[in-house]
């Protein structure tokens, strides 16, 4: 092997700034999309378990529609498909203010919301029905029973699969490069293009993604311990 590594391409010239800006965009894109995904996931996951069919139908439609179309297609849909449907003024404002970012954020949020929904539904369905009965028997409405008892218990039960789903969301944010969001993968490609140093550029991207994911997993493990329900099977001792 006679490849000469030249790691300095990562911080010489504009590379360092590109990487940092890419990292910032990835974090903003993923963070906002995560909030959308969790909100949609909790609402639709809970709706799929309520004793009222119209709500279940709406939530089921959302989940099956959004999780069964590839994320890439959603990115294109929100970026190329939706803006022409908007009034001209809003469209112009959007394209002046990073339309690709918002399209990518929505695509990522609603796609992962549908997947998060299933995680939350499985958490709710693992709670005995008698918990819900006890909650309404003291006078809570169905909405209050979900908000104060059922969902808080379910969220504590689903931290491990929700963590995996959150990491998938972060990694899938890289798909947004296809609609030219200048996120981390976009920037590593750019460094590669400018320096012809593929291994160095992609290694930087890999290490940064790895670091982010391990960091998030560590935080979530802490959250899991902090909010564990006393009396349930804990992590091995």
């Amino acid at each position: 092997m006679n490849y000469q590594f030249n790691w300095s391409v990562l911080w010489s010239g504009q590379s360092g700034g590109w990487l940092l800006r890419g990292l910032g965009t990835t974090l903003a894109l993923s963070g906002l999309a995560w909030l959308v995904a969790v909100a949609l996931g909790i609402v639709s996951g809970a709706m799929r378990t309520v004793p009222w069919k119209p709500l279940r139908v709406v939530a089921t439609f959302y989940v099956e529609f959004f999780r069964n179309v590839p994320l890439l297609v959603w990115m294109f849909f929100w970026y190329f498909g939706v803006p022409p449907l908007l009034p001209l003024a809003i469209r112009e404002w959007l394209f002046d203010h990073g339309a690709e970012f918002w399209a990518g954020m929505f695509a990522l949020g609603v796609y992962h919301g549908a997947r998060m929904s299933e995680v939350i539904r499985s958490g709710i369905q693992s709670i005995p029905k008698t918990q819900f009965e006890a909650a309404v028997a003291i006078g809570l409405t169905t909405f209050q029973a979900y908000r104060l008892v059922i969902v808080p218990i379910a969220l504590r039960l689903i931290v491990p699969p929700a963590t995996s789903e959150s990491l998938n969301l972060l990694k899938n944010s890289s798909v947004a490069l296809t609609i030219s969001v200048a996120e981390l993968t976009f920037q590593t490609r750019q460094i590669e293009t400018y320096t012809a140093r593929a291994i160095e550029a992609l290694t930087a991207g890999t290490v940064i993604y790895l670091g982010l994911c391990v960091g998030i997993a560590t935080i979530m493990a802490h959250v899991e311990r902090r909010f564990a329900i006393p009396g349930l099977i804990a992590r091995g001792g």
Partner: protein
Amino acid sequence: MTDTVIEFRDVNKWFGNIHVLRDINLAVEMGEVVVVCGPSGSGKSTLIRCVNALEPIQGGELVVLGESLTKPGVNLPALRTRVGMVFQSFNLFPHMTVLENIMLAPVKVRGLSAAEASRVARALLERVRIPDKAENYPANLSGGQQQRVAIARALAMQPKIMLFDEPTSALDPEMINEVLDVMTDLARDGMTMMVVTHEMGFARRVAHRIVFMDAGQVVEEAPPDLFFAAAKSDRAREFLSKILTH
């Protein structure tokens, strides 16, 4: 003057094709303690679960505290604040402390301040004789203690009626009495109670009336001394011979 607080009028209920309650006619007066007994599958749990509308009925009428549960638009959450329920499996909220379990409905439904609700909750814990467990989580309590917290949680809404669905069936023998003692206190204080139980000693001492059910029907109603000494129906005598002789 007597006040009828629960009235079943020709109530019928099905689970799918299974006819679980057949033409039930039954009235409970204010301050009365009614024990419902009968073989398993006789419909006794279903009967009391209808009273706070955890189970809907398909025929007849059920009037609780002056409200017909079959009337369209009946406000079930409001009704349930006036009808407390204690379950066989305790059903405390596992992610909340004992105190939080008891305070939840007073704060969220009645709008009490946290300080006021906490004062009420601590007084109730005194009443069920576990004042020192306020900060514990349900998982760290014995079954008998959990069930007494469940009673306190129901009482926190100051209900007019208390329903007990086999409250001691999931308990070890030595814990049954601590729960029955609390229930006996409650009955002595004049609470209207419907109790599904196999504890015939409790029924004999505390109940004003025994309702015996079999196959979805009320077979017999009698004051306890009469019921235990001379049940009229064969089915009740057979049931008693099985549960009183072990």
